[in-house]
């Protein structure tokens, strides 16, 4: 029963991440996600100080709000410096993350919002977080939130992902031809913030980064169009999560760590397959 609940959480989270993955990879914003995941720490700690609970909806709301603000600020900063764009992001997120760590040390040291949990997440712990109304024995609040997230993302994929796909390909053309491209990006960052915050609690910062990029990246190697990207991402996500969880469970080691590491191995494998087939042609 616990195992099913665990698997459900994992699958829901990774599906959400797999669906934003193509856009992130095509926009080349992988390190941007890394930066966001580190920069939101002050926001999360601040939300925690305000709401005093990690599980309430209000906490999620504030955390997503701060995450969204941070993403926008990061984007603005990214575009401002001429010298080396990725360096300014490096400065920004290490600075914010440091502030966050000190905030944890000074204000929140007694609660289970400790630095390790922030980094690793504990997939196992969410099993014990329950909603007052329980639909089925093994469903809980986290599952509900993640399903809502998944629904929103599916709608977004259906209606809005295409224009961002075009924008990542040819920025000038898309900006010229399409109105409201800026707002589409804002919507995307809002959805991204929502997905990231939900997933951080479940999977931890590192695994989130891995699952947000790996499906899209592997898909890109084999895709001919946007639909292919999404299909391959979903297939990859399900396969890698299942394999990773199985390996972790058999060896009795951390699930998050195993999946993240497997994603690296799979990428190397996929790259090897792809470059070999390219040479044959």
């Amino acid at each position, binding site marked *: 029963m616990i195992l099913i609940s665990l698997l459900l959480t994992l699958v829901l989270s990774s599906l959400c991440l797999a669906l934003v993955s193509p856009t992130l990879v095509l926009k080349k914003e992988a390190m941007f996600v890394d930066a966001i995941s580190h920069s939101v720490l002050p926001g999360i700690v601040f939300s925690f100080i305000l709401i005093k609970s990690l599980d309430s909806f209000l906490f999620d709301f504030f955390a997503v709000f701060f995450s969204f603000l941070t993403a926008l600020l990061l984007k603005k900063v990214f575009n401002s410096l001429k010298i080396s764009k990725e360096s300014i992001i490096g400065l920004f997120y290490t600075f914010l993350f440091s502030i966050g760590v000190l905030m944890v040390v000074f204000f929140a040291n007694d609660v289970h919002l400790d630095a390790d949990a922030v980094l690793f997440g504990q997939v196992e712990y969410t099993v014990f977080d329950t909603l007052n109304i329980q639909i089925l024995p093994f469903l809980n609040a986290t599952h509900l939130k993640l399903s809502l997230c998944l629904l929103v993302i599916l709608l977004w994929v259906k*209606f809005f992902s295409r*224009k961002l796909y*075009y924008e990542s390909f040819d*920025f*000038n053309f898309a900006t*010229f*031809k*399409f109105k409201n491209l800026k707002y589409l990006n804002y919507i995307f960052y809002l959805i991204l913030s929502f997905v990231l915050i939900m997933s951080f609690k479940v999977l931890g910062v590192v695994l989130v980064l891995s699952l947000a990029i790996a499906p899209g990246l592997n898909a890109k190697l084999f895709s*001919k*169009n946007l639909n292919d990207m999404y299909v391959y991402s979903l297939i990859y996500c399900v396969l890698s999560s299942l394999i990773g969880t199985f390996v972790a469970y058999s060896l009795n080691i951390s699930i998050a760590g195993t999946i993240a590491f497997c994603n690296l191995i799979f990428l190397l494998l996929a790259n090897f397959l792809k470059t070999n087939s390219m040479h044959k042609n």
Partner: protein
Amino acid sequence: MKIVVSNLSVSYQNLLVLNQVNFNIPINTITAIVGPNGAGKSTLLKAKLGLTNFNGNISFFGKNLKESRSKISFMSQYQEVDWNFPMTVFDLVLMGRAARLKFWQSYSQEDLEFTEKTLKEVGMWSKKDSLISNLSGGQKQKVFLARSLVSNPDILFLDEPLAGIDYKSMQDIFKILKVQKEQGKTIVVVHHNIEDISKYFDYIVVVNKKIIDFGPVEDVIKRRSISKAFNS
């Protein structure tokens, strides 16, 4: 009826890239915008398309950009595009028809037919299912050109469409442009080469941070403005 640019100035971070530019382009011509590297040719194009901030005034046959946007199309510079994208040739050209779609709509039968027609016009129909990363330089530019034609615009802006392609492809592209001109379109090309200008273009604008000269090709050549721009 002309495309009129008056008192256009563009600056990036306190650096003046274009200074008080004034010129006009008559309807139904193939115009070249030439100048040395860094002269601001691409910037001029981007300003006209509203892709960069500027001071000054631009009108397209009497109307402003907002009103004429649907009748204008453009071809980006080769290097500013990610050619390793998961996209087929057909999808790339189809992208040109996306501007009219609302977010809940998908491509219509008319969109698909127009894409087919345009691809055949540029001679790339046989490659319609190829990945764009598998194309040669000349093929990429042709497909790119097809995308700007598929929406049936009145004005075409092309940013260095002939950079780095073979001679045969270049001839093919100019042939296509001539056909478009005969159909009544106005074509403006940012061109990197000053050889054979009179062979391919009717009109020319010479830029080097400001307007050196503009007008019909023969007049500008007679006035030796081009060599002035490149030697100053």
